[in-house]
C-alpha cells in the first residue's frame, strides 16, 4: 500500500501542499481535510468584490473541489479535524479515525478580537470565509454606515471598498498615523489622503472603547475616545493570529510569535509532520527573528515546499524579506523588509535615501510620480528595506527591491543600475536610481562635513 499524506486546511498553503505532493509523488495517496466547503478561491479579492471593482464573487473562484478530485486528491470538505494521534498516526474527523503516514498542518489563522464590551454583538464582521462574504455583500445593500476598526492593510482595503460601494465610512485606529505598524508617516500621508478622497473619515489616534447594541442585539454604534459613531456594521481588521489549537494538542513546538516552529524544510518538531502558511513562523532575512501572519503568496510558497518534502523531495524555503503592497483608495503603497520606524524600534542603524521619479516618460499621458525611500546600512550602504508610493509600477519595484536586497545590493549598485527607457512604460531616469543617487550624494556630503578643513 502506498503512503498516505493528510493535509489539514484548504487555504493557500493546504492547496499548494496537497497538489505539489501529488504531482511530486503520484503514487502517494493525498487527502485534504477542510472545515470549509470551497477551495482555491482568492480571499484577498473579497474587499474588491464588495467595492464592485470585481463584478462578481464567482470571479474569485479559481477552481472547484471536483477538479481536485479529478487530479487524484481525496477531498474532505466541511470536515473538521478534531483530534490528532501521533502515536497511532490517525486524525479524527466526524468521529471517524483516518490513518496517515505523513501530515501537513495548514490550519491558518483567526482574527484578533477586540477585548472591549459588546465584542460579541451581531453585526461585527470579520473578513475571511467567502460564503460569509457573499452573505455580507447582500446585507451591504441595505446598510448606510460602516465603521472600520484597526489599521492593518485589510482595514484600508475594506474602507476604500465600502466607500466605493456608497457607504458612509469611518475608519478608526489607535496609531499616530495610518498603518503605523507597517509604514512611515511620509508614506502614510498620501495613503490617508487617497482614502479621504473617496469620502472615508479617517480618525487616527482614536481608541476603541466598546460596541453598543440595539434591542435586536445588533451593533448600532461604536464607542470611541472620539465619541460614539453610529453604524450598521463594524468591520474588525486587527492582527492575524495563528490557529494552533491542533498543533498545541499534539505538543508541537510553538515559537516566540505563538506560531508553529518549522525549519527551512517546513518540518515541525514532530517527525513526519510539516506545517505551512499562517500557522507557522519563519525568520525575517535581516534579523533572523521569527515572524508570522504574512501574505497569501508566502503561504502558497511554504505549502509548495512542505508538499514537495512530504512527497520525498528536498526543498528549502529562504528567510523572508517580505515585499508588500496594496491600494489605499486609488493610490498604491508598498515596500519590503523594514522602514524607518521599524529600524528605529529594533535599534538597527540605518541611512535613508529618498527620490521622486515618474512612472513613464514625463511627457507621456498618464505619467505618475513615484516616490522611493530606500533604507540602507551605514557604511556598506547595503539595502535593508524600502517604502514606495505612487501610481503604476510600485508592486514590481517592491518585488525587485526585495529580491536585490536579499542578494545584498547596495545603494551604489542601485545608483548605477540599468533600466528600461520606453516612454509609455518607463522614464529615462528610474525612480529607484534617483533615490539611490540622492542617497550617495548625501553620504558624500556628510563625509566632506566630517573631514576638518
Amino acid at each position, binding site marked *: 500500500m502506498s503512503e498516505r499524506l493528510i493535509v489539514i486546511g484548504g487555504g493557500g498553503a493546504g492547496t499548494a501542499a496537497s497538489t505539489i505532493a501529488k504531482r511530486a509523488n503520484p503514487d502517494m495517496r493525498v487527502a485534504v481535510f477542510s472545515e470549509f466547503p470551497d477551495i482555491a478561491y482568492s480571499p484577498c479579492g473579497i474587499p474588491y468584490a464588495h467595492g464592485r471593482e470585481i463584478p462578481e464573487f464567482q470571479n474569485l473562484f479559481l477552481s472547484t473541489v471536483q477538479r481536485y478530485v479529478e487530479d487524484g486528491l481525496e477531498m474532505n470538505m466541511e470536515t473538521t479535524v478534531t483530534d490528532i494521534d501521533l502515536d497511532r498516526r490517525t486524525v479524527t474527523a466526524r468521529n471517524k479515525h483516518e490513518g496517515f503516514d505523513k501530515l501537513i498542518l495548514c490550519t491558518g489563522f483567526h482574527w484578533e478580537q477586540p477585548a472591549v464590551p459588546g465584542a460579541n454583538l451581531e453585526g461585527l464582521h470579520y473578513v475571511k470565509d467567502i460564503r460569509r462574504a457573499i452573505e455580507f455583500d447582500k446585507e451591504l445593500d441595505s446598510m448606510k454606515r460602516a465603521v472600520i476598526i484597526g489599521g492593518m492593510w485589510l482595514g484600508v482595503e475594506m474602507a476604500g471598498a465600502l466607500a466605493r460601494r456608497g457607504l458612509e465610512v469611518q475608519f478608526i485606529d489607535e496609531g*499616530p498615523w495610518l498603518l503605523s505598524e507597517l509604514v512611515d508617516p511620509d508614506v502614510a500621508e498620501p495613503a490617508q489622503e487617497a482614502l479621504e478622497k473617496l469620502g472615508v473619515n479617517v480618525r487616527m489616534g482614536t*481608541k476603541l472603547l466598546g460596541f453598543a447594541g440595539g434591542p435586536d442585539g445588533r451593533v448600532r454604534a461604536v464607542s470611541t475616545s472620539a465619541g460614539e459613531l453610529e453604524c450598521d456594521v463594524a468591520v474588525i481588521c486587527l492582527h492575524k493570529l495563528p490557529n494552533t489549537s491542533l498543533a498545541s494538542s499534539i505538543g508541537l513546538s510553538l515559537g516566540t510569535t505563538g506560531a508553529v516552529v518549522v525549519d527551512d524544510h517546513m518540518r515541525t518538531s514532530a517527525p513526519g509532520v510539516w506545517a505551512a502558511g499562517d500557522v507557522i513562523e519563519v525568520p525575517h532575512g535581516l534579523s533572523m*527573528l521569527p515572524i508570522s501572519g504574512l501574505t497569501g503568496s508566502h503561504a502558497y510558497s511554504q505549502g509548495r515546499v512542505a508538499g514537495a518534502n512530504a512527497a520525498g523531495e528536498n526543498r528549502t*524555503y529562504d528567510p523572508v524579506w517580505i515585499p508588500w503592497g496594496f491600494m489605499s483608495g486609488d493610490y498604491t503603497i508598498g515596500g519590503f523588509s523594514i522602514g524607518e520606524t521599524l529600524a528605529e524600534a529594533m535599534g538597527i542603524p540605518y541611512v535613508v535615501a529618498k527620490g521622486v521619479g515618474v512612472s513613464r516618460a514625463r511627457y507621456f499621458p498618464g505619467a505618475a510620480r513615484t516616490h522611493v525611500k530606500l533604507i540602507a546600512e551605514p*557604511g556598506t550602504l547595503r539595502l535593508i528595506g524600502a517604502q514606495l508610493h505612487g501610481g503604476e509600477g510600485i508592486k514590481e519595484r517592491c518585488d525587485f527591491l526585495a529580491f536585490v536586497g536579499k542578494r545584498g545590493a547596495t545603494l551604489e549598485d542601485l545608483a548605477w543600475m540599468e533600466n528600461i527607457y520606453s516612454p509609455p512604460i518607463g522614464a529615462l531616469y528610474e525612480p529607484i536610481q534617483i533615490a539611490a543617487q540622492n542617497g550617495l550624494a548625501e553620504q558624500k556630503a556628510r563625509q566632506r562635513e566630517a573631514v576638518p578643513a
Partner: protein
Amino acid sequence: MRPQAFDERKRRLRARSEHVLRMAAMDDVARRYPSRTVPSALSHEGPFWRLVFVPLYRRVPWEVKRNAMRKLKMTAQGWPEQSRTFGEPWRPPAGEPLKRPANGSTPRSGA
C-alpha cells in the same frame, strides 16, 4: 521551569518588548513628521519598560543585541545562518555550489 511555561514567558517578553520599542520609535519618528501625525492612543507600558528597558536597549549596539537574541534562542532555529553578518560586505551564500545534473537541465531549488 517546564519548557512550555518557559516558551510562554519568551512569547510574552517578546510581545511586550516589541510593543514598548515600537511605541518609543513611533514617538521619535512622529517628532520628525509633526504635521503628518496625531497623538497615539495606543496603551503605554509601565515606567520600568519606558524609562529603563527602552533606554538600555537603545544603548546596546545592534550586533550585540543580535548575538544576545541568538544565544537566548529568540532567533529562528533550524535555519541556516545568514550568509553575512551586519555591516559585512556581501558575499555568495555558503554551501555547495549548484551542480548541473547529468541531463544538462538547470537544477531547481527553493519553492
